[in-house]
């Protein structure tokens, strides 16, 4: 279900907020109403003043009531005839004048109303007010998404798919109207306005008590920066997630405590480096998510060795940095112009689309080639040429336009780098499983062999192709039964969460991957570790199993049965009876 797009003019008109459209309507209606009153008055006076005769020949004057009645039905062209008696010629002459006078005045008034309703600015104002009202009346948590390009659209789709609400602001009318056509699971208010203007952000719910986070994912770094600054100043406690394509912007955003800054190129380069250096950690990364941020599209892992980077921009720069960090320093850069900082034989002039350049870059002995241009056709051409020269080479392609997804899949590359989906998935991961990034950071510090061991353990436990992850907190919102049990002085262990009351013999296929307690992260906690109030727990496993853990954690009876093996009585009366009986039986 999508929403009609709300537009707003940029500039001064857009800055004024909360402008009611009623004064505008009244002002526009002033002239037609005055005309109407004046013509009615003239017509009525004339009709009352001109003497007529009854059928019996007695003289009479129309009363004001008769005259008003006559003019009313004449002006609206209903025309009931000459009432209360037939008119004489003098009256008819006056009525002829009146008809033209009042009918024209009436059409003028109706025409103005219709013109007003059809007026684009008026419609915009009405729609903008409706948007404001809709946002103000939101009574559940929502995410404010600025920018609905490829990333924003994917973000909104993912958020609504997970049952969250979203509000969207974007300046481009074409994009907002496209999003409004999209088939989303919940109603998404969309405002077509410049998100640079803080007024528009406030209208979209920046200071709304239910606004959970602001996601600035426009394609323009400066706009994202401006949005982040506005958000941090106007609502300092709000979580702000921004996209930053340049390092200068990233540092700038970090300087005023932007909560999460996501750079698609760094994210990808980090993922590639990790896949080369610690393949098992990468496998864990991939396995942990239904939609991995950096997917390997073929079964092979990126090898060490000589890498060729075609096209030198932000992506190539980030990859070069990361690869050199992990000791892969035999990197050849293929670009039309020599980038500063690249010396000697590491640079090959050319585009990479022609075999001669790639041969010059020694593609026959290279481990992998990365096509990092911002042109999809060039990238595919480079990769296909490289494959024809060296069939076993590892192919990494940057896909700039999501619409080219099918072609990239058909090319059977080993890794596809699509900035917009990397951004969207990474932001979703930050928002929905806040414990997952710290968990993965901790895992990366472990030796790869240990990770492999953990992975095979967890995989054999969960027995699924792809696991889901979920963050639970020991509080009354997520785990009321656990909180109650702790308050009663019972011990709730990690292992208690892994069983259901329905089948207490069978362990659920979930793994408690991490517990965060007071800023400290405990990786793969012991099964006997006791939970404490305020713990944050990261669960890994199939979605259905995680749902059962959440059920047990929320239901007193089931949890108590799992802990004690006894079914507690339901209801206050039975509990009282049970307490009485246990007292009568004496302590044992």
């Amino acid at each position, binding site marked *: 279900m999508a929403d009609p797009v709300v537009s707003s003019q940029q500039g001064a008109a857009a800055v004024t907020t909360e402008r009611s459209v009623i*004064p*505008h309507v*009244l*002002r*526009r*209606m*002033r002239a037609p*109403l*005055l005309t109407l*009153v*004046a013509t*009615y*008055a003239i017509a*009525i*006076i004339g009709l*009352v003043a001109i003497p007529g005769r009854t059928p019996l020949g007695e003289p009479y004057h129309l*009363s*004001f*009531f008769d005259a008003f009645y006559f003019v009313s039905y004449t002006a609206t062209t209903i025309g009931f005839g000459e009432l209360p008696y037939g008119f004489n010629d003098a009256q008819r002459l006056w009525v002829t004048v009146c008809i033209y006078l009042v009918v024209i005045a009436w059409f003028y008034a109706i025409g103005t109303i219709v013109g007003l309703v059809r007026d684009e600015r008026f419609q915009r104002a009405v729609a903008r007010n409706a948007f404001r009202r809709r946002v103000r009346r939101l009574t559940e948590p929502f995410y404010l998404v600025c920018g609905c390009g490829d990333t924003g659209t994917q973000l909104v789709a993912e958020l609504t798919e997970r049952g969250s609400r979203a509000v969207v602001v974007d300046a481009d009318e074409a994009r907002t109207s496209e999003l409004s056509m999209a088939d989303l699971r919940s109603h998404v208010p969309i405002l077509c306005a410049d998100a640079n203007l803080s007024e528009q952000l406030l209208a979209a719910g920046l200071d709304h008590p239910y606004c959970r986070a602001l996601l600035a994912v426009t394609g323009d770094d400066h706009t994202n920066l401006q949005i982040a600054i506005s958000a941090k100043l106007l609502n300092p406690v709000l979580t702000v997630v921004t996209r930053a394509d340049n390092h200068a912007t990233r540092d700038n955003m970090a300087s005023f405590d932007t909560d999460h800054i996501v750079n698609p190129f760094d994210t990808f380069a980090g993922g590639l480096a990790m896949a080369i250096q610690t393949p098992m950690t990468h496998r864990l990364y991939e396995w942990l998510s239904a939609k991995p941020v950096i997917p390997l599209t073929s079964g092979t892992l990126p090898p060490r060795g000589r890498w060729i980077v075609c096209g030198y921009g932000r992506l190539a720069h980030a990859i070069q940095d990361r690869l050199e960090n992990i000791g892969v320093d035999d990197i050849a850069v293929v670009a039309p112009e020599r980038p500063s900082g690249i010396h000697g034989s590491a640079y090959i002039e050319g585009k990479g689309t022609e075999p001669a350049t790639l041969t010059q870059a020694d593609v026959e002995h290279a481990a992998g080639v990365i096509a990092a241009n911002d042109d999809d056709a060039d990238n595919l051409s480079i990769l296909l040429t490289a494959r024809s020269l060296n069939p076993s080479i590892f192919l990494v392609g940057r896909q700039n336009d999501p619409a080219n997804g099918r072609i990239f899949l058909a090319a059977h590359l080993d890794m596809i780098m699509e900035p917009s989906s990397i951004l969207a998935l990474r932001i979703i991961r930050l928002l929905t499983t806040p414990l997952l990034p710290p968990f993965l950071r901790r895992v990366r510090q472990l030796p790869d062999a240990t990770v492999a061991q953990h992975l095979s353990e967890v995989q054999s436990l969960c027995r699924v192709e792809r696991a889901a992850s979920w963050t639970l907190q020991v509080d009354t919102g997520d785990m009321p039964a656990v909180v109650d049990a702790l308050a009663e002085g019972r011990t709730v262990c990690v292992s208690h969460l892994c069983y259901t009351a329905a089948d207490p013999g069978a362990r659920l296929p979930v793994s408690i991957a991490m517990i965060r307690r007071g800023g400290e992260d405990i990786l793969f906690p012991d099964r006997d570790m006791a939970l404490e109030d305020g713990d944050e727990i990261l669960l890994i496993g199939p979605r259905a199993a995680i749902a059962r853990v959440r059920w047990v954690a929320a239901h007193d009876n089931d949890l108590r049965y799992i802990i004690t093996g006894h079914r507690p009585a339901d209801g206050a009366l039975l509990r009282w009876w049970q307490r009485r009986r246990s007292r009568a039986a004496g302590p044992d």
Partner: protein
Amino acid sequence: MNLEKVVFGFFILLALTLNFGFFLGDITDVAHHNVYELFAAIVVSLIATALKFGERTQIGAVLLAASLVADLQLIAAAVVWTLASHALELGLTPSVLASIVSLSGGALLANIVSVTILVLETVGLHR
């Protein structure tokens, strides 16, 4: 001199004076209260209301409110007149006329408020 202000002031004042003229006289005496004067008072009051449409200021809003009250009272008076002489065939008995005139008296009060505000605003403008 601003022609718009002249027209505005003219109609607000005229609404008051016509209303006053209709109201003046013995409350039960038909000869003291002319139906044409009531009609004119209604028309001018409606025009004054339309002129105040779309004012953004606080004073404009109060002026519009006062004008709407005057309209309501005068139209109520006209409706009572019509009902008594046409629908109910009562004729203009002293009690009917008394209620018509007292309704117009209420409108007069609203019109006085309008003019007072207008004068205050004008005086404030010069200070």
